[in-house]
């Protein structure tokens, strides 16, 4: 089943930050991403929601150009992916922390800043400030708590101030207080014009997004604001909505 999500017209009037057209990625017989087409408007937070193995990470890797589509194409800020030079404008927080344990907080940020071509201390300080790690700047990452490492991981994705940000399950293993802080950061970034795509399998995060894309077996089974989806599914509970909108159907091939 391939649901072509509606183009989101006129909400901002500007060209989409992210576009996908007929995007397919297969691994052997598995269609991890199955004919997806969508436009995502700039400056909004999009929630990519679905169970583990539904194709969220593969979709993000296709959009960042980390993997080549089997068919179709993806564009970020008007540039066809994969594009190495376009990666300067993209931030990517991986599911694993993806930071160097032997280095200090500041050394990690300086390193990622340098590979993004960002010079000087100001961007590093800015990123440190956003995630509130300035007091642990000289700590070796291996000595940090899991939550602090997660914050550093986010900072490393922000150090070059990208207009587009992909966050792959950023709040996994993060305590409720830090989760609230994370979402406050995301909102602040979005208010400043950053387009954010957040993947999650936690439905209670969904309402913090401007718009949701429900993903199941590599396809988008529903798209809209939390309220729109509730109305569409006829339930007040997003988890129920997900199940009613086809999330409970095992797609057989």
């Amino acid at each position: 089943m391939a649901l072509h999500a509606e183009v989101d017209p006129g909400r901002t009037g500007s060209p989409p930050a992210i576009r996908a057209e007929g995007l397919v990625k297969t691994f052997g017989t598995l269609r991890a991403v199955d004919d997806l087409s969508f436009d995502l408007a700039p400056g909004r937070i999009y929630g990519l929601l679905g169970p583990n193995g539904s194709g969220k990470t593969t979709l993000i890797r296709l959009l960042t150009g980390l993997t080549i589509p089997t068919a179709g194409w993806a564009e970020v800020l008007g540039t066809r992916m994969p594009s190495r030079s376009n990666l300067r404008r993209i931030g990517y927080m991986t599911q694993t922390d993806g930071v160097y344990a032997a280095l200090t907080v500041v050394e990690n940020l300086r390193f990622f800043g340098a590979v993004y071509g960002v010079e000087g201390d100001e961007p590093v300080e800015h990123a440190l400030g956003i995630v509130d790690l300035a007091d642990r700047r000289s700590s070796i990452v291996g000595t940090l708590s899991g939550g602090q490492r997660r914050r550093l991981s986010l900072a490393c994705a922000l150090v070059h101030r990208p207009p587009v940000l992909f966050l792959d399950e950023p709040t996994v293993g993060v305590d409720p207080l830090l989760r609230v802080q994370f979402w406050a950061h995301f909102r602040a970034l979005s208010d400043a014009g950053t387009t954010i795509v957040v993947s999650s399998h936690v439905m209670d995060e969904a309402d913090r997004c401007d718009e949701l894309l429900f993903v199941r077996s590599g396809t988008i089974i529903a798209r809209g604001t939390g309220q729109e989806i509730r109305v569409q599914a006829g339930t007040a509970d997003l988890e129920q909505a997900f199940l009613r909108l086809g999330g409970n159907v095992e797609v057989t091939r």
Partner: protein
Amino acid sequence: MSRHRIVALFRRVVLEIRRDRPSLALLFIAPIVITGLVTFILRESQAPQVTAIVVNLAGPPGQPVGIALAAALRTDGATVSDMADEAAARASIGDKAASVGIVIRTGTASASSLDITVITNGLDPSGDVSQVSAVQRSVLAAATAASGTPIPVVKHATVYGTPTDDPVTTFAPAIVAFFAYFFVYILTGVSFLRERTGGTLERLMATPVTRGEVVLGYTLGFGLFATIQVAVLMLWALGSLHVGALGPLPAFSIGLGIAANGSPILAFLVVVLLAVGAVSLGIFLSTFARTELQVIQFIPIVLAPQFLLSGVLFPVSSLPSILQPLVAMMPLNYAVDGLRQVFIRGADLGVPALQLDLAVLGVVAAFFATIAALTIRRDVV
């Protein structure tokens, strides 16, 4: 290629190794301890003690021979006793009360000839060889004494270097090359595996970094430590700093004091090319490993054949001909040969053999760097 990004990668790799104390110890202390120990063993090995039993079963014709042999052995510092019975002699050697038995019999060729059987314990083959050669020396000495004419003395000269009985001279270049290869491979392999499994490579690939820059950054980072390691190891191997007695402290010397003829800079070049190949090999093989233990498990496949087939332990010329094509494929072989060309022969860049070694090492390094870069695909999780 961006110089900026390569420098960033290089600095990061250097920082990581500097923080990793056990790896630093592995790089610098382990080779010094091992080469020191091996040198000490090779140089200070004790001459085996010979305790001989002479058994004359040939009657009167055997007597003067037995006496002459015993005299020659005693001159060599051996303890010699006589026994009438071979079985008793065997029992004594079996108990390690004696180290060697010399049984003189009537010859099988003719009644007037004599046969000598040398009996050893048999549990320690290399120790037995030294016992047999001690007896052979004494046979030669006895024959010289009996004939009255001195037997010519065999002297040894070499085209390259000077003949030396210091076994460490040929061993040192091999061990320097091997350590550089071994440690650089292990450290790069493990470090790059962490990069793959820890998610940092995934993140790195989502930056404008190219895979060529990654390989180059790693090569420069680990190349720096390999260079320092080789410098330290060469100072240790070639140096001989004599420290005079001071108060209660006896005189001693630092360094193995191995004689070398060629330029250390050329030796450097050889080892650095080898190490660059080892960095790329580590990156390449980390593709096939899932855990750090598996990187270690590649050692028997990757390093052990090189150790056996590159003249580190066994001379390349003594290896079976069926193995020679494999020998020709071992990068370490060219480094060991190159270092020997430099150290022993005193070769400069004009020597074709050294040119070949450098060329092969360069090609191998470039080849592995290319396939290492190919394993860093954006398309791989």
